[in-house]
Structure formats: structure tokens, C-alpha cells
């Protein structure tokens, strides 16, 4: 996208007004790394929202609230007892990109290979969107279609609320790539809630080799109410084909991708269960 103007509004409401006025010619800029690759013929105006106090991580009740312009490297370095977001951020792109790219930028316009939507779906995160006042959207609703559609009239994503992992809840994620900095071939994230070895609830999500990040309801149904054993995890992962059309890419056949997804699901579930078992508070 060619920029003809670069503005830095002094407040959130001014930024919203600017973006509303600019319409399709305006673009909220946080890290700005994606802007360089946007194929838009019309030159536009960047509205810099990085100086509005939206870069923070803090605990709020049962959630961690992450400001929309918080760089991925801050999320990667953050540590707390009921927190697991650092795991996936470590695996996104390179050090230099993580230092500038933000959580908001990653989920305002979702590309098929994006990792964070997968994790936020599994974790049942909430997205806070500002339009004069703040409105909260659950992950299932927010990621039900391209989120960029929500921001056409000047709305601004201000924060993401990630639930803190309660006792006997476990998180596991797997990102399969060709090399450390490459886009994902398959990304899987899972949250399991255990009662003893009994699976009380499960949220499993996938991304990359499917058209858009989504939850895997057949996999989840094959887990809920069962015992947390490798056999159950294996049978559940074999349901992956029922939920999403796995696509072949980068020299891989669709059948290979589907198998890669199944193995990744199995791995993510094992990790989530191990995580959950070790957490009695």
C-alpha cells in the first residue's frame, strides 16, 4: 500500500474519527509490517495508533488483558502462573518481526496462516473493539468470518482478553513449519479441562492448511466425557477430516496435510493433558 499521508492522532476517539473519515483510504497502523505487502492500488493514509497507551499486559480478574499494540516479543517474554500465550508467540516469524508486529495487527486482518487466531479460539479469548465505546466479542463470534469487516467504519481493536488457565485446565499448541521463520503448514491449539483423568471439556482449533482458522467440533466431541488417554486422543485426532477440508500446499498432498494435522492434534492434546495434570490450583 503506497502511503501519501502518515498521521498520529492524540486520542483513541480522534483515531476513530480519522479512520471513519478516510474510509477505505485509511489504515490503522500498529507494527505496520503487513502494510508493506498490501495490494491496494489507491494510495492511502496510515493512522498510527501506537502512541495511545495500548501496549500493555495486565491481570484483570480471571483474564490477562493484552493491549492491541503490544508487540509479540512482549507477549513472548511475559510469564505468569496461569498464562500460556508466550508459547506460540515464540514461534511466530523472526525476532525482528516479533519486536514490532503486534497482537492486534495479527488478528484485525486474518491471513489463513495466522497462528494467533487458532490459539485465541482454543482459549476462548475476548476481543475488545472501540467505536465510541468498547464492545466485547467472544472468539467464536469474532473469528466466524474475516474480522477486517468489523473495522470498515473506523472501529479500532483495543485489547484482547485471554482467560487465565484455571486448575486442571491445560493448554497445548503445535505449529508445523518447514523452518523456524516460515509460515505454518499446520497450526493446532487445544485447551483441555480435566476432572481426574476424565475430560470435562475440550476446545480444539486449527489453522493454516484450511481456508480460515476454525474450531474442530468433531474432534472436541470425540474428547468430551472420555478418559484422557493416548487412544482417545488418537481417535479424536482422526476426526480432523470431518471438520475441515485440508489443503495440499508447498509440495504436500491434501492427504499428507491431513495426516500432519492429525499428528499435530495428537501432540497438542498430549501437551494439554500433561499441562492440566500438573495444575491443582
Amino acid at each position, binding site marked *: 500500500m503506497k502511503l501519501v*499521508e502518515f498521521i*498520529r492522532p492524540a486520542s483513541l476517539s480522534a483515531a476513530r474519527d*480519522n479512520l471513519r473519515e478516510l474510509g477505505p483510504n485509511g489504515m490503522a497502523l500498529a507494527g505496520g*509490517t503487513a502494510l508493506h505487502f498490501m495490494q491496494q492500488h489507491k494510495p492511502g493514509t*496510515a493512522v498510527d495508533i501506537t502512541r495511545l497507551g495500548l501496549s500493555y499486559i495486565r491481570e484483570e480478574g480471571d483474564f490477562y488483558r493484552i493491549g492491541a499494540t503490544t508487540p509479540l516479543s512482549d507477549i513472548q517474554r511475559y510469564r505468569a502462573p496461569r498464562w500460556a500465550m508466550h508459547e506460540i508467540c515464540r514461534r511466530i516469524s523472526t525476532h*525482528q*518481526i516479533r*519486536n*514490532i508486529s503486534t497482537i492486534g495487527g495479527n488478528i484485525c486482518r486474518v491471513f489463513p496462516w495466522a497462528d494467533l487466531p487458532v490459539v485465541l479460539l482454543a482459549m476462548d479469548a475476548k476481543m475488545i473493539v472501540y467505536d465510541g465505546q468498547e464492545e466485547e466479542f467472544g472468539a467464536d463470534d469474532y473469528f466466524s468470518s474475516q474480522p477486517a469487516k468489523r473495522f470498515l467504519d473506523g472501529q479500532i481493536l483495543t485489547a484482547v482478553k485471554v482467560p487465565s488457565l484455571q486448575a486442571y485446565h491445560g493448554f497445548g499448541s503445535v505449529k508445523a513449519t518447514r523452518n523456524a521463520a516460515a509460515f505454518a503448514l499446520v497450526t493446532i491449539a487445544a485447551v483441555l479441562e480435566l476432572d481426574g483423568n476424565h475430560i470435562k471439556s475440550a476446545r480444539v482449533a486449527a489453522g493454516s492448511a484450511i481456508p480460515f482458522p476454525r474450531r474442530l467440533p468433531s474432534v472436541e466431541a470425540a474428547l468430551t466425557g472420555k478418559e484422557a488417554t493416548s487412544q482417545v486422543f488418537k481417535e479424536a485426532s482422526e476426526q480432523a477430516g470431518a471438520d475441515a477440508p485440508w489443503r495440499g500446499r508447498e509440495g504436500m498432498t491434501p492427504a499428507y496435510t491431513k495426516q500432519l494435522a492429525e499428528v499435530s492434534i495428537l501432540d497438542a492434546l498430549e501437551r494439554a493433558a500433561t499441562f492440566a495434570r500438573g495444575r491443582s490450583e
Partner: protein
Amino acid sequence: MKKSPQTVTFTLNGERKTFITEPDEKLLALLRREGYKGTKFGCGQGTCGSCTVLLDDRAVYSCLLYAKQAEGRNVRTIESVGTYENPSEFQEELVKNGAVQCGYCIPGMIMSATSLMETEETFEDEIVKEYMDGNLCRCTGYEKIWGALRTVLDKEAAKKAKEAK
């Protein structure tokens, strides 16, 4: 809507400077036209790392940064680390190890390593890889660069441990 000024002011290698710029200009382009040519143009798309500079002490790709994004910030380029006459320890070690072949990636490597040394207290392999994963070298196969870096990091870790006592 108030038009933004066509200038940008930031601290460059310790000196506060103002430059004329355009909204679309990348920080890399500005630095090079202002004579800071140690920062290299490689891929131009945030992959190779040869354009790495420090923005508020963090390594970033200057090819993926609009110059305007640096407003009010602290920018450091390879020129702040060492010179031909007065190289930094890592630069000396790179030469000793024969780790510089075509040399194009080296300024970026050094900037990432600088942020690593300044930020971390210890330098386990995993942490080092984390900081260096955005710098590609197409000549050396990394072994010699890694060797030079490890030598410097071991010395740095010993120094930090001594200071902590």
C-alpha cells in the same frame, strides 16, 4: 484532519536529528541516503536481516519500518557499534574466526547480537537462537559466525556474573 509535517525527528546513534521525509519512505532508505550505509538493503521484505537496526534497543527490520514510525524514538545503526579503526569485540572475533565472507549480512548480525548482549543476563543456546533467527547468511553456513558469537557471549556472561557478585 491536520496534515502531518514532512519531517521526522529521532535520536540517531545518540544524536537528536531531524530529517525531511515522505510518508512512504522506509527507515532503511532514509538512513542510507543520509550516509549510514552500514545498514544494508537485502531482501526488502523482512526476511534476510541485513537491514537490522535497533529501535529503542530492540532489533527491527528497517526495510519494514516507515521512517515516520521512528518519530521520537532511539535508533541505533551499525555505525554506533564499531568502526574499522576501532571495532567492537564481536567484530574483532568475527574477523579472527574468518566468519566474514561476502560480509553483507554482518552488520545485521552484529545489531541482533548487540541487542542480545544488552538485554539478556545469560546466553543459553536457545536464547541466542531466538535473537539471531531473523538474520540469514548465504556464505558461511553459520558455523564460524556462531563460533565467534559464542566466544564473545561466554566472555560477556562471565563479566555479568562477576558484576552480579
